[in-house]
């Protein structure tokens, strides 16, 4: 099997399913459910094949339209891109399963607008795969817009007024962010005459215009990744959306813009970035870890707590920059590995945590953390899934989260940057604080008159548990996927 021939199907399949679900939107649910199940399974199968083929035969590219870059647009499948494609297929498959179960059981009385959940779901996946595989600066812009608009649409499908204001706020941030990015693209094209990333990697130099372009793209992408202090839009959007949507937004969507930032800084504009800018990004990341964790501790609504936890966990990703820029080869390699493992482990753990939270809320009937009293005895499975995910987020062994934070820690030691150690450790403590807070409430005796729980579908628990288990399993077997992911990356080893 040829990896290059497989690549475009990662885009064609979700796009076809998006179109198909628009056309099927008013058919009986049995049809759409069967159609969507087939789509998710097909996507997982294709992604797994692509992963396997790339592992066996190495990275591939695909010249779309038969025109090679810079005239045409290329796709590129290296270890990292392929891993993220597989991650997307798995997480979206799980969330899709959860959504189908919820449609089957809770459909009565809900707004019918959720018919159009599925087209947006597939458009979101198209955008994500487009971004993971992209190899062109402007193509990434279109992918970013598709990602942003479909995510905003999904948020707007939630119930009532709050979801609309959250969607609007999200949209305003997304629009500003992508325009900043586009402005950077304009400056790059004017100065270098090409948009293809591989070519630009060899051309970019530390001109003022290039630095401005990179700064603009960085600010735009940070806004879209909700880096502190530009994170204000994230908690309402992720907290108010439908449960499977929250899971996909936190697990995958915010990673899309971060991934572009990582590619730009490490692959393309290596010669333009400065250690000072990297330290600044790291400082903001540290701010996110502390502020997001603190907010999660104080948050009264369960889903908002998990959303604030996303703000904090995204902060860890940004510690990559100070740990890798200008610190020497070994520290940079460790930082890259730690950050990428954190990205994957957080995606699995956070989607599990959101799904488990949604199940708990469905069972209790209310969304407050203090409403959970007594749920521990009634919903042990959901709480177990929540706890497993929490273990990975806190960075306790054995889990993917632990290995990731361990690698980041080692990188900090190797580079002699002690300050980031403190951030890593206090972030872990804050995470432990809010996860245990949920547990404490859940095992409290319910108030008199409370403690009535609805039974939720079994599938809810299985899906959350499967994702949480994967995030733990990553702690036992992270070496080989990591080696595959970082293989072929031009890590910033050429630093000072």
């Amino acid at each position: 099997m040829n990896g290059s021939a497989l690549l475009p199907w990662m885009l064609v399949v979700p796009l076809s399913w998006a179109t198909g679900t628009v056309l099927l939107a008013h058919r009986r649910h049995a049809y759409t459910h069967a159609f969507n199940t087939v789509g998710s399974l097909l996507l997982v199968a294709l992604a797994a094949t692509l992963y396997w083929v790339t592992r066996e035969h190495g990275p591939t590219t695909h010249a779309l339209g038969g025109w090679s870059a810079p005239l045409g647009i290329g796709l590129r499948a290296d270890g990292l891109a392929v891993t993220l494609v597989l991650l997307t297929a798995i997480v979206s498959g799980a969330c899709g399963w959860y959504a189908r179960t919820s449609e089957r059981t809770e459909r009565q009385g809900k707004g019918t607008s959720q018919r159009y959940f599925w087209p947006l779901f597939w458009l979101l996946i198209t955008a994500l795969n487009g971004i993971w595989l992209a190899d062109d600066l402007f193509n990434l812009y279109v992918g970013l817009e598709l990602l942003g608009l479909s995510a905003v649409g999904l948020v707007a499908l939630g119930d009532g007024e709050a979801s609309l204001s959250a969607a609007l706020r999200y949209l305003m941030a997304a629009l500003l962010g992508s325009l900043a990015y586009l402005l950077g693209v304009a400056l790059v094209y004017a100065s270098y005459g090409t948009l293809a990333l591989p070519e630009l990697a060899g051309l970019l130099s530390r001109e003022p215009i290039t630095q401005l372009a990179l700064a603009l793209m960085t600010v735009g992408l940070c806004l879209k990744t909700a880096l502190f202090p530009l994170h204000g839009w994230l908690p309402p959007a992720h907290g108010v959306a439908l449960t499977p949507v929250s899971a996909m937004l936190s697990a995958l969507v915010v990673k899309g813009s971060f991934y572009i930032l990582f590619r730009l800084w490490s692959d393309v504009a290596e010669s333009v970035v400065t250690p000072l800018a990297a330290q600044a990004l790291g400082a903001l990341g540290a701010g996110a870890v502390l502020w997001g964790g603190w907010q999660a501790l104080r948050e009264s609504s369960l889903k908002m707590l998990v959303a604030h936890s996303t703000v904090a966990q995204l902060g860890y990703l940004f510690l990559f920059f100070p740990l890798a820029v200008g610190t020497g080869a070994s520290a940079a390699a460790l930082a890259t590995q730690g950050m990428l493992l954190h990205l994957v482990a957080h995606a699995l753990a956070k989607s599990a945590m959101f799904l488990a939270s949604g199940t708990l809320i469905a069972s209790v009937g209310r969304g407050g953390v203090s409403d959970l009293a007594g749920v521990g005895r009634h919903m042990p499975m959901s709480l177990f899934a929540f706890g497993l995910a929490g273990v990975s987020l806190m960075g306790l062994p054995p889990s993917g989260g632990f290995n990731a934070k361990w690698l980041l820690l080692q990188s900090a030691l190797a580079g002699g940057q002690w300050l980031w150690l403190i951030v890593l450790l206090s972030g872990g403590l804050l995470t432990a604080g809010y996860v245990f807070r949920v547990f404490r409430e859940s095992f409290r005796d319910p108030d008199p008159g409370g403690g009535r729980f609805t039974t939720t579908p079994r599938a809810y628990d299985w899906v959350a548990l499967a994702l949480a288990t994967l995030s733990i399993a990553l702690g036992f077997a992270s070496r080989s996927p990591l080696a595959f992911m970082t293989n072929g990356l031009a890590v910033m080893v050429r630093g000072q």
Partner: protein
Amino acid sequence: MKQRLGRQLAAGAVSVSLGAALWHAIGVRPTPLVSLPALVSDAIPASGVSHPVTAVLLNFRSYDTLLEIAVLMTAAVVALALREEQTTRTDTPASARVRYVVLDTLVWRLVPLLVLVAGYLLWIGSKRPGGAFQAGSVLAGAAVLLRLSGFAITPVDHRLVSRIAMTLGMVIFLCVAIGTALAGRELLDYPVAWSGALILVIESALTISIGVVLFSLFDNAPQQPRGLSR
């Protein structure tokens, strides 16, 4: 009031520094080493069209266009989703509106002209400025004009026929994409002999869909439920 002033000062500082940085950057831009226009003109004969912008949009960078149609579809889907919830849609029936004779005549003259213009733009797009986007938006403009002057044109709602019209461009584009992939070529790599015809087919379908979707974005905008205040 103080907060407002603070916001203005901060916004002013940010935008003035961005403006100054852009101003400076534009002045010291290096000259590019790569020349895409030269590559474009070299490849034009193999693209199936003679107008370079159309060649870039529908051949060299057709994948961008595919994703762009997906963006347009996203907006259309959200509009449909939010429209459907409204049970109390207060569409003024066309007959109930006051019509002005002059406007009527004007519209009746103008709309067929616009449709003609759209067809011309679509056709000429392969050789000269024009193409699916301009043609589609002119079509949508004609429909908006009709709706604004109170004519009862069919709404673009969740009926199957509307949804088919909205997705037609995407369906045809995807069929071509899948066809090329199944034939063992790169995605959207048209055989040279067919590329002119394929581009025209794709553009025709896109024109319809772009027109319908752009009109639907106007037509499906939520209305205030009458006499219902919360």
